[in-house]
């Protein structure tokens, strides 16, 4: 019986993009459904009744929610190629730690850069760049966080790169100037089709941010 795989997403969401990168790495055939967050579909509300958020992966009628949990599920089910997590438990713990770090910190600091002003925005900028520098240290000389191929940390962190242009413009700084290795890693990842197919155009993200700012009356 053929697998039925449906991904509910929202195009600018970095969490949705993560799931797309993971599915593409594994060569999974799936149906993508774009959600209107102002008018959520019955399928979304039924699949994620608790948070009512995207992304949601629906696999043969069973929903899986929370992007990093979805990515690990994808890795466990489609385990015949492109492993996203290392084989041994210590390295797996290490990957989970950095994925968790990127997940929590980048969202938090990025939000402050986009939506706050003055001191709060400056704190966001500093926090964001400190995190990127730590991630640069973790990457080291490896081509990817996963080593020779994409891993959980790459998948977790990459989609935020679409938002760098928005952070840079709102916060008046340059990621390339402060963390060149991160930009080099992003460019390297984008050479992979699984990534280039799944990431959004940073300019489009910035236009979306502008729409949101107008909607919420933020400068």
């Amino acid at each position, binding site marked *: 019986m053929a697998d039925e795989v449906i991904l509910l997403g929202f195009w600018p969401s970095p969490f949705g993009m993560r799931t797309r990168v993971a599915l593409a790495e594994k060569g999974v055939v799936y149906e993508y459904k774009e959600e209107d967050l102002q008018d959520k579909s019955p399928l979304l509300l039924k699949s994620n009744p608790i948070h009512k958020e995207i992304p949601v992966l629906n696999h043969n009628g069973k929903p899986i929610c929370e992007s990093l949990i979805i990515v690990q599920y994808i890795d466990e089910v489609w385990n015949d190629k492109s492993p996203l997590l290392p084989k041994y438990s210590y390295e797996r713990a290490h990957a989970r730690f950095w994925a968790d*770090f990127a997940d929590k910190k980048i969202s938090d600091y990025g939000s402050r850069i986009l939506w706050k002003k003055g001191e709060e925005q400056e704190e966001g900028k500093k926090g964001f760049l400190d995190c990127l520098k730590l991630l640069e240290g973790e990457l080291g000389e490896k081509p990817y966080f996963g080593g020779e191929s994409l891993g959980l940390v790459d998948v977790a962190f990459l989609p935020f790169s679409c938002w760098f242009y928005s952070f840079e413009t709102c916060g008046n700084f340059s990621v390339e100037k402060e963390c060149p290795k991160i930009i080099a890693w992003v460019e390297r990842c984008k050479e992979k089709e699984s990534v280039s197919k799944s990431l959004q155009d940073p300019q489009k993200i910035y236009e979306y941010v502008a729409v949101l700012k107008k909607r919420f009356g933020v400068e």
Partner: protein
Amino acid sequence: MEELKLFGSFISPFSRRVEWALKLKGIEYEFIGEDIINKSPSLLKYNPVHKKYPVLLHNGKPIVVSLVILEYIEETWKENPLLPDDPHEKAMARFWAKFIDEKSLALGRIAFFSQGEEREKALEPTWEALKTLDEEIRGKKFFGGENIGLVDLVAGVIAYWFPVFDEIADLNLLFEQKFPSLYAWRENFINVPAIKENILPQDQMLAIYRERQKKLLQIPTNE
């Protein structure tokens, strides 16, 4: 020979959940008590990013962040599994663990630092979350099913810490009346020997938090 050390605190729910996992699997370890204000140089060395406990040190290699540590323990020691084998059920367990952690963390802060109407409003999401968990646990002995699992260990914060915060800050938790299925789960949970034998008595926990309240110490917003 395996060397296993846990840097933690008897009063921390994040440290306790790791201890419970080790005890349930029958794993020997050395416990090193940490103080929330004066953290040891070792702790800062092994967790330079977050500078927090718990930290598990296995043959000299550190693992940090309690949910990451729990998964590490589960993958390294196979006895008495704490997570299901089936990928979808495993994903559900991870979902509930994350849900509980995110929704319960605020309670300590609210209990100690907010008052009156502001507090009532701040508590609403926590009560909503408890209602959701009450529905989820209905008809089950443990979140893990017949046997205690990872989600139960994470929910330990609700079993032991929520009543303490309730008493100190008079939160009107009304555990048994408002969340009867969750209350029944609690009775099952606190009677598991590995749990029961590895927790401070409630009155000791109360005394420690009352002392902290007096000093107006920052309650950890995560571990």
